[in-house]
């Protein structure tokens, strides 16, 4: 009787904690969405008459293009590096992750510097052939197609990472059964591997698309008007913050609908891998001809997504850039510790949320967690404003309290500090860590919990001693992605950071937006470098754990 009671207690304790966390994370989004309750002012007829259709059409085209791109690169490369055997496979499996370290706006700046009409390639071409503008065709990088390619190149690793994990987990047994049923390899891929990996692929695609929707830097630079540039044009140009928030809320609604639709479409499918011990999957040995094809397929995204832009940045940094404000160590350290703190917080919170959900399949926690995940689709600036509003309100209460009690002026202690910044990162990137942590936890069979609990472990002990070690790989993946994402994050950092505090991303952006792309190269290169380190380290350790 006594034992039962204590169970019940920790049970409630955890789900309440989870609910509180989920609600806190939802607050900024609720604040933004509350604009839907305000009147739809005179900005709306103007938007509808003029630019809104452009915003919507361009955003949809962008989403479709990026979807096609990340799936075409992410899924095949994931399959090659998990199911096939060919020389260089191990190297490719982590090289394919590298573009993750490159921020979208930086790859856009780099390729523009290279491919623009006034850039070195076209200038050389003209000098060599004597042709002038309009005499020849050349790919216009500053276009919708250009934006799709740039975003695809840096976002496909989400699909690759999650799809690869899913492929690796498919037991060879099921595949073999499939083969004995008379399917050939291609059929087995389309009828078994792909459907089984579908939730993971969709999860990766969702992340890529949410980041696409939140992107402002790339599309703005290319002169493509999307829904997000529209939010900022309404905010900055028309000076209408309410209409801008309403636009952002509609964006959120759209994303929520997509997610609901996707969940509904696979409501009946549940895939469980039965084998506890994965038989080392029988890898498909590639012929020499196929190896070459696979190599090319892997080298294209690595080359265009990482090697070329990183080399160009390195070249600019070494030969041409003027080093402005040389305190790069401080910048790198700021970026690094913010990213690592945010990653730890996000993963820790995800663990609590996912575990609470597992213990008690409570609807309120589930819904709150789903809503919390939507934050990833919102542009950072909008999240940031949704964060300062409640924090400043709280601050004002605290100031009033301290003033009336102690005649003390404590100033702002929450907004305008690193606390606000870490809060923003958590809201924005919880979706990512949640995805990885949840899928890791789901793979652990519930009967393990029961066994551990019957041995007298508390819920928390089960989590710490059993689950965490079992799901190391998922936890590390979550840490890695959040770390790299925070490192690249710009808009929320820009508006929320405290006095005299800069990061690499802020520094690179300041120079780039001042039209000094080449001078921004050293900082950009350092973002890539700092991001690279954990990408390599973690992918190595993930691989070792897998073996």
């Amino acid at each position, binding site marked *: 009787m006594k034992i039962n009671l204590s169970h019940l207690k920790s049970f409630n304790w955890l789900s309440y904690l989870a609910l509180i966390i989920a609600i806190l994370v939802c607050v900024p989004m609720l604040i933004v969405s509350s604009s839907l309750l305000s009147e739809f002012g005179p900005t709306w007829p103007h938007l509808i008459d003029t630019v809104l259709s452009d915003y919507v059409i361009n955003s949809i085209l962008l989403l479709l293009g990026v979807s096609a791109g990340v799936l075409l690169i992410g899924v095949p490369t994931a399959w090659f590096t998990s199911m096939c055997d060919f020389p260089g496979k191990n190297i490719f499996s982590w090289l394919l992750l590298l573009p993750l370290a490159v921020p979208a706006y930086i790859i856009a700046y780099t390729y523009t510097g290279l491919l623009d009409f006034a850039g070195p390639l076209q*200038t050389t071409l003209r000098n060599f052939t004597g042709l002038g*503008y309009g005499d020849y065709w050349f790919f216009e990088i500053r276009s919708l197609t250009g934006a799709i390619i740039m975003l695809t190149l840096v976002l496909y690793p989400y699909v690759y990472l999650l799809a690869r994990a899913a492929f690796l987990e498919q037991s060879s047994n099921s595949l073999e059964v499939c083969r004995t049923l008379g399917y050939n390899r291609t059929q087995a891929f389309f009828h078994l591997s792909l459907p089984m990996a579908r939730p993971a692929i969709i999860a990766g695609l969702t992340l890529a698309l949410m980041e696409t929707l939140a992107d402002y830097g790339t599309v703005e630079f290319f002169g493509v008007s999307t829904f997000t540039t529209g939010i900022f044009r309404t905010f900055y140009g028309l000076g209408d913050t309410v209409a801008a928030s309403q636009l952002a809320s509609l964006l959120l609604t759209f994303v929520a609908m997509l997610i609901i639709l996707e969940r509904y479409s696979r409501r009946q499918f549940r895939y469980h891998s039965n084998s506890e011990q994965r038989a080392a999957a029988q890898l498909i040995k590639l012929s020499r001809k196929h190896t070459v094809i696979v190599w090319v397929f892997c080298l294209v995204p690595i080359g265009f997504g990482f090697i070329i832009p990183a080399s160009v940045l390195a070249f600019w940094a070494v030969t041409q850039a003027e080093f402005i404000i040389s305190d790069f160590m401080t910048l790198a350290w700021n970026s690094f510790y913010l990213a690592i703190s945010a990653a730890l917080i996000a993963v820790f919170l995800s663990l609590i949320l996912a575990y609470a959900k597992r213990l008690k399949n409570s609807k309120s926690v589930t819904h709150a967690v789903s809503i919390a995940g939507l934050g990833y689709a919102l542009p950072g600036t909008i999240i940031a404003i949704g964060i300062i509003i409640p924090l400043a309100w709280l601050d*004002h209460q605290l*100031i009033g309290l301290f003033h009336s009690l102690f005649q003390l002026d404590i100033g702002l202690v929450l907004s305008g500090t*690193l606390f606000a910044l870490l809060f923003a990162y958590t809201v924005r990137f919880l979706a990512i860590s949640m995805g990885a942590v949840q899928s890791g936890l789901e793979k652990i069979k519930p009967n393990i919990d029961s066994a551990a609990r019957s041995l007298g472990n508390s819920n928390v002990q089960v989590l710490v001693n059993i689950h965490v070690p079992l799901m190391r790989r998922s936890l590390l993946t979550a840490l890695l992605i959040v770390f790299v994402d925070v490192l690249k994050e710009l808009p929320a950092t820009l508006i929320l950071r405290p*006095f005299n505090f800069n990061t690499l991303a802020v520094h690179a952006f300041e120079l780039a937006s001042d039209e000094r792309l080449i001078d921004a190269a050293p900082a950009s290169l350092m973002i890539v470098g700092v991001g690279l380190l954990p990408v390599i380290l973690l992918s190595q350790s993930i691989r070792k754990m897998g073996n």
Partner: protein
Amino acid sequence: MLNIISKKLLVLATCSCILTTQFVLADSEVNVYSARKEALIKPLLDKFEKSSGITVNLITGKADALLQRLKIEGKASPADVFITVDAGRLQRAKEAGVLQPVDSAFLQQSIPAHLRDADNLWFGLSQRARTIFYAKDKVKADQLSSYEDLADSKWKGKLCLRSSNNIYNQSLVAAMIDNIGPEKTQTWANNLVANIAKPPSGGDTDQLKAVAAGVCEITLANTYYFGRLMNSDKPSDREVVKKVAVFWPNQNDRGVHMNVSGAGVTQSARNKVNAIKLIEFMASAESQAWYAAINSEFPVLVDASIADALDSWGDFKADTVALNKLGENNRAAVELMDRAGWK
């Protein structure tokens, strides 16, 4: 005694349990929210620190985002000075009620009336001219005359334009609305867009490079971007300077469109005296010369010395439209450009 200790402990606990880099608010400080980029303001602030002994704390960011932060933080905001790079946003800050009037004889006497707010809420600190640039080998200066003329069909396919998301284009159109009225400005914008050689993209420097590379023959840009190319030692930049020249339009009527970067003291300022000192320092002859030398901007002081690059462009007549009009007409300008299909 116990009471004091417990008070202190409470404050300490509150501060330490929250991850914070709260600053001890000392007397010799001034806190700045700046839309001017760090590289273009920090050196000046460092000089101020050295000469005054007042520590300057800085946050840079986008003007509207910083303004939003100021508004939300309200009277608890730590900011003392708000710096922007265009008059429109200063006016917006004034309308949002986040600035307070400054009584400074020096600022009022040395800055011309049209470059500061009538109620002394903000002061222009450097001027930027947005003017016409042309390809020397294709266009002769006497073919050019005014902003209005750029919409003439003779320039069809020969004009490069930056996106209308850019505040400097918005301010230019806002000034035109004030000068020639909304209807004429609308017609002008419609015809202007019909003349463009390629869809708008990139910054002012990109437009100048496009003119040099032969994509188009004329464009609009702020002069300091050209000044930077003149001061650059990169061969590709020198090449642009060789091929492109400045033209001052509307010399027979209102003059060249001017904007300012400027500053105001915030409503919440706890270091008001220091804040005024800082703004006065930025308007001093020494700082004014710095703006010109470092970023090729025009001083607001009438008698300030200007750098050689600026001198080489020759004298010109500047538009003296009251700059608060730029802010007041900004929304109308954006709507007008939306209707014209100016991306």
